[in-house]
């Protein structure tokens, strides 16, 4: 049985929101890149959308992270060492918070380029750029879970699953977001259907990581903490939110004319359910360890 005698860091809504938005920012960029590399020209509207989304979300991420600090004006101390006599940059590869601040900053630059492309102000970015940008996008979506694990908190430090879990759910939420907002930018129905299928695969991956999370914290003897009171209700809602997406994955093979139209009908509701599930999962993971 793992022993924990720690104080909680009191990371609450700003941090949960950051984790949520970071997953969507990184995920949207990655999915747009996948569509660019392997999709068709009909996906172009959604690709532009996927490249427009990360920048505003990165800005929001930076705002949430900053206002969560006790001294928001000293946010830059994360990047530059202000210890007297020790100037220079702060970078600790073994501290995910330190790495993450750099990853967010660098991904912010890729998002800026992508944003201009999305606006039509830049020619399509070379594949090399989008692939490197996607690497940082994936990192941003996943490191937040690792950050929680690299601590001595109950639950968080008792599992290896959180990085993968946050990454999978970030991809799932991004597919849902693109499918949803795709409606408003005249996205092609076939893009939307394929995003629905992708969402299903991501939801299955997320489900596997949720199981891994439960198994690891059960082995550590701390599972009771996240399956008590209100938290168990939230977990049920999270699991329920995966069902429509997973069904979508198997519906894909039957898509044709009318099927696509039917999927389009549900495509407004389903993404919202997925996004709520993505947010709730972060709430239950972040809060149940601390309170």
């Amino acid at each position, binding site marked *: 049985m793992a022993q924990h005698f720690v104080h909680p860091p009191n990371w609450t809504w700003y941090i949960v929101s950051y984790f949520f938005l970071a997953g969507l920012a990184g995920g949207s960029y990655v999915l747009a890149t996948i569509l660019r590399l392997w999709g068709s020209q009909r996906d172009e509207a959604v690709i532009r959308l996927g490249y427009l989304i990360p920048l505003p979300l990165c800005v929001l991420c930076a705002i949430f992270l900053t206002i969560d*600090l006790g001294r928001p004006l000293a946010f830059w101390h994360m990047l530059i060492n202000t210890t007297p006599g020790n100037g220079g940059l702060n970078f600790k590869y073994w501290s995910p918070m330190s790495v993450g601040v750099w990853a967010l900053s660098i991904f912010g630059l890729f998002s800026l380029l992508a944003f201009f492309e999305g606006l039509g102000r830049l020619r399509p970015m070379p594949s090399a750029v989008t692939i490197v940008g996607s690497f940082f996008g994936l990192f941003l979506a996943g490191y937040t879970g690792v950050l929680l694990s690299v601590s*001595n908190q109950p639950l968080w*430090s008792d599992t290896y699953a959180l990085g993968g879990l946050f*990454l999978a759910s970030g991809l799932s939420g991004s597919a849902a977001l693109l499918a949803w907002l795709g409606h408003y930018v005249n996205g092609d129905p076939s893009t939307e259907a394929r995003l629905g299928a992708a969402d299903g695969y991501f939801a299955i991956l997320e489900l596997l990581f949720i199981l891994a999370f439960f198994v690891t914290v059960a082995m550590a003897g701390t599972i009771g903490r996240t399956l008590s009171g209100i938290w168990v209700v939230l977990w049920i809602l999270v699991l329920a939110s995966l069902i429509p997406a997973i069904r979508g994955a198997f519906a894909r093979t039957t898509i044709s004319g009318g099927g696509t139209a039917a999927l389009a009908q549900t495509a407004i509701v389903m993404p919202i359910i997925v996004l709520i599930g993505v947010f709730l999962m972060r709430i239950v993971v972040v809060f149940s360890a601390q309170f």
Partner: protein
Amino acid sequence: MADQVGFFTDTSVCIGCKACEVACKEWNGLAGDPPEFRDSFDNTGQLDAENWRHVKFIDLVPDAPTVVGNGQAWLLMSDICKHCEHASCMEVCPTNAIIKTEFDTVFIQPDVCNGCRNCISACPYAAIGFSKDTGVVHKCTFCYDRLQNDLTPACAKACPTQSIQFGKLDDLRTRADARVAALQAQGYSQAQLYGRDDKIYGGLHAFFLLMAKPEVYNLPNEQNAGLPRRNNRGGYLGALFAAAIGVIAGAVALRRGAQDSPNDRGAGEAEKK
């Protein structure tokens, strides 16, 4: 570098007077938290931004009546930041606000800290607290200012029973070895040193003589004294696995399908034409 200094806290002689708590607050100008009545003599409750020493009262009074002298009723322990040799707080701090001083103690620089609270999530001893007033975190400084002026830290100076002993780390270790041997010879088989050697976080500069297992005092035992970075590898591998499967699954699901015309190329290629 100056000599390594330490605290040896011998809990067997602590009487729970809290002189250490008071002296610490006096010297460091800590207001303390509003008093709270708990089911104990302990109305401090925890180490935090306002309490850098905390006398724990561990209630072992048996529920059933017993004969005189059969067992301990209370365990007392003046708790503090352990000034770990391998400090979890320092490991994760992204601003490098947490440093080792010339005395090899662990010190948080308040003007460098930005209040991210990552150290709080890492410290296995719950020794750090966040202050809304200052916006940064605080813990025992080992009376850094007193050390620089060759003075004994306030808590050790005030302790009337010498439960808290201050000195050079090597001297304290020798003293602690003798004391635990004496107690064991008197029949206190549970008497043990905690953090005296490098098995707990590379050695604690504030180490303890305990009269029961560490868990009884809410201290992690040897198997559970892990540094946060132990989870980097597993956490990133999990994320890498998810990323690989996610990209493959995404490519499979999002690749242009049968409904696209054979000439319908990848979007990027088409744009570039």
